[in-house]
């Protein structure tokens, strides 16, 4: 089911790309124009997707196990944690966003003692910030408190 949806997505993406690339122009006086390479790539994606749809039995991935229950929750938590950190970064800065994300992930993935979770989250976030922001002078996003 997921594989069929992906193959349909390839076909749609390829066709949409070809249409868009044509609007950019395929060839000009100096040879290929801006749209030629994307047009060819889009045609390959669409043709590949169509082939995979038509030859699904031969090309289908064998034994794909999608996560369920606790495994699905862990995958969702990690993805959600990353999204939350991305949203929080501009407002509360790197260290606070990293501590919050790590606490949530460490508690959610496997039950760990609070003291251990908070200690680890603070220590590792500060260590990463110190290494990149201080030692390597990478301007990580700052919160209202300056880090």
């Amino acid at each position, binding site marked *: 089911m*997921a*594989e069929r949806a*992906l193959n349909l997505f*390839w076909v749609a*993406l390829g066709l949409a*790309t070809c249409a*868009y690339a044509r609007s*950019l122009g395929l060839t000009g006086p*100096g*040879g*290929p124009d*801006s*749209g030629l*390479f*994307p047009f*060819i*790539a*889009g045609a*390959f*994606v669409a043709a*590949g*997707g169509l082939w*995979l749809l038509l*030859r699904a039995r031969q*090309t289908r*991935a064998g034994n*794909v196990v*999608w*996560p369920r229950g606790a*495994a699905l929750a*862990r*995958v969702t938590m*990690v*993805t959600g944690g*990353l*999204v939350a*950190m*991305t949203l929080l*970064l*501009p407002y509360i800065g*790197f260290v606070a966003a*990293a501590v919050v*994300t*790590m606490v949530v*992930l*460490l508690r959610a*993935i*496997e039950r*760990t003692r609070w003291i251990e979770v908070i200690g*680890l*989250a603070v220590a*590792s*976030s500060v260590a*990463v910030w110190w290494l*990149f922001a201080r030692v*390597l*002078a*990478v301007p*990580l*996003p700052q919160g209202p408190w300056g880090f």
Partner: protein
Amino acid sequence: MEALTGLATGFGAILTPANLWYCFVGSLIGTLIGVLPGIGPLAAMSLLLPITFSLQPLGAVAMLAAIFYGAMYGGSTTSVLVNIPGEAASVVTCLDGYEMAKRGRAGAALGMAAIGSFIAGTISVVLVTLFSPALTTVALKFGPPENAALMVFGLVCTVLMIRGSPVKGLVMIALGFLIAAVGQDVVNGRERFTFGSVDLLAGLELVSIVIGLFGVSEILLNVEELARNDVVRTKIAGLLPTAADWRASWKPILRGSGLGFLLGVVPGGGPVTASFLSYTMEKRLSKTPEKFGTGTIEGVAGPESANNAAVAGSMIPLLSLGLPANAVTALLLGALIIQGIQPGPMFMVQRPDLFWGVIASLYVGNVFLLLLNLPLIGLWVQLLRVPYRILFPLILLLCVVGAFAANKNLFDLPVMIGFGVAGYVLRKLEYDLAPLILAIVLAPLLEQSLRQSLVMSQDGFAIFLVRPISVGILALSAAVVAWIAWRALRPAKP
């Protein structure tokens, strides 16, 4: 003689305190990530790529290359002690290495893996030194048409390296072209696929894409099952192999070195293929093949030598032709391009200090790795006992910092997450992601050199057929395509 002069220049460049430090740090990090299951050299290199932006080019590339071959050294440790390969090229080492560990010979297996890796690494670096200058004679004749032909050859070779379904691999290559097209047209500056977004004007950041595809997706796959580390508890002693071990291993080490080097040079070869083929070859050549898989030291010495030799071999097409042989060398190519350096036929002529400096760094890195690996095995064992539930949030933090640091732009974080989720789904559905990365790196180079060639040309595409080098490379590409087609269409053996 030319090689020796060049190598002396290279050693002059690498033997500075700063460059030695970066080489050492790369070796240490490479070994560390090789030891830790769940993060491969590609993910680690992509995480550290932004750090290298502020370094001198030689220090940056020496550090990234050291991570690559350091991971080959470190990967054997987990294979032997936990029966979990630290990275893909050490999968085959599990077969005999872990059996040796269960019989109390973990020290001998780890020692032979490290020493064999050192010997193979040294042999292959000598071969790199000897072979690379041969390509300089043709280098001076390269212009845009030859470069375009070379990129076509690179793409054809990318098809060769597809693992699994060829159609899925081709879709990945085409998708790489689409992703590379996002941003401003390299020739006329026109916007493509930006949809009015200022963030997309400069294109999608390679570092964020790689971190997402290989770092984040790896974590998502690993957190599905949080395995507990079951490290061999016996005391690890006797790291230096015995005389009997040496007698059994010296031939596999030499054969593994030669085979690994060759497979490193050939696009699509690389360390993983080298280690598997070396194991198969040793088993075939052995008088006691039935002992393979039960803890024979030849099963460790050959593959571990082969995977290290392949790393040095893969530097030849990268440095001399600007062609990455695998995803890791594609990232190295990306690192050089970000530094404003275009590896390729003219690289050795224009930047001999850097070209030979990278080769000299391979010698230095191998010495560091031997010195690091034997005394630090105890430390690596302790690290293996750190649960993954503690490691992965730390790796995620590094992913975020790595993606952000490339452009100091928060827009790169959603890009990383998007490619992370996409990489997770694609890997589940058995898509090979290496061709995608190779296409993203090669596509802009091909488009630019092709369009420059046509602007130069009075007769359109005929320019590719009147220049001997480009016509030769295109003929070779056509031959490879014909071979691929023949291989795909021949009837399967009953």
